[in-house]
């Protein structure tokens, strides 16, 4: 059962992410990315992490994606022009883009080479001594990581002020 769910969620996440990257219309990209986040949330449940699964839906799908959706609708963004001329071929584009494509291909090869060298490591069964609860997370978050937690509030404040300053219409004296 767990194996089947892993495959279903994994395949949905990969296909949805591919569609996000492959879309020319950013509107569809944003909506499909929510599907990918939902599948990842399912994987977190399989991994015995209900807290992460919940905040994945609440923060990512609920807050960040809505922010993206607002901006896409606010700007009335044109769909990306289909590539023309020498841009049409994936590896034949402008110099920087060709360089980027080669780099990302290199990363893929590197990652899979590293993966192939790993010994198979079975996960401990659910509900064993190692499994964690939201209680453990809360205790640790507010004891060992309390400074980092407080620091994030400053980070969010700075991001909020920065976003307002950046997106403000410049007063034309």
């Amino acid at each position, binding site marked *: 059962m767990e194996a089947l769910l892993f495959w279903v969620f994994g395949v949905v996440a990969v296909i949805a992410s591919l569609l996000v990257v492959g879309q020319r219309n950013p509107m569809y990209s944003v909506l499909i990315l929510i599907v990918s986040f939902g599948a990842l949330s399912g994987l977190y449940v399989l991994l015995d992490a209900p807290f992460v699964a919940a905040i994945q839906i609440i923060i990512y799908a609920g807050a960040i994606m809505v922010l993206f959706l607002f901006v896409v609708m606010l700007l009335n963004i044109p769909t990306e022009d289909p590539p023309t001329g020498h841009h049409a071929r994936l590896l034949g584009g402008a110099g920087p883009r060709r360089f980027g494509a080669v780099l990302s291909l290199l990363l893929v090869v590197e990652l899979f080479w590293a993966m192939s060298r790993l010994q198979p490591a079975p996960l401990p069964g659910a509900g064993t001594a*190692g499994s964690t609860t939201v209680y453990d997370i809360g205790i640790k978050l507010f004891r060992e990581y309390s400074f*980092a937690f407080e620091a994030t509030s400053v980070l969010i404040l700075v991001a909020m002020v920065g976003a307002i300053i950046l997106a403000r219409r410049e007063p034309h004296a």
Partner: protein
Amino acid sequence: MPEPTLNSYLLLSAVLFSIGTAGVFLRRNLITILLSIEVMLNAVNLTFVAVDRYLGAVDGQIIVFFVMTVAAAEAAVGLAIVIALFRHKESLNPDAFTSLKW
């Protein structure tokens, strides 16, 4: 069907991260580039949670919490920059923004 091991989760995470990287390098739309960054962040989150489960620790989930906070701040500032850029040039093609000052 074999039970998923740590390796299967790491492999899935690697695939998602590669898709995100390819998106950042190959797309010519600032919004899609930001979305690809979110895909990469999620791939890393999956690694954190999977290794967390493998080690029976809780620290990875706390790191994921912080990653999400940073992702929210990044999305807010990034989108504000996108709005400012779009006002100036009526375009979201990163190749349109080549001058530091205008």
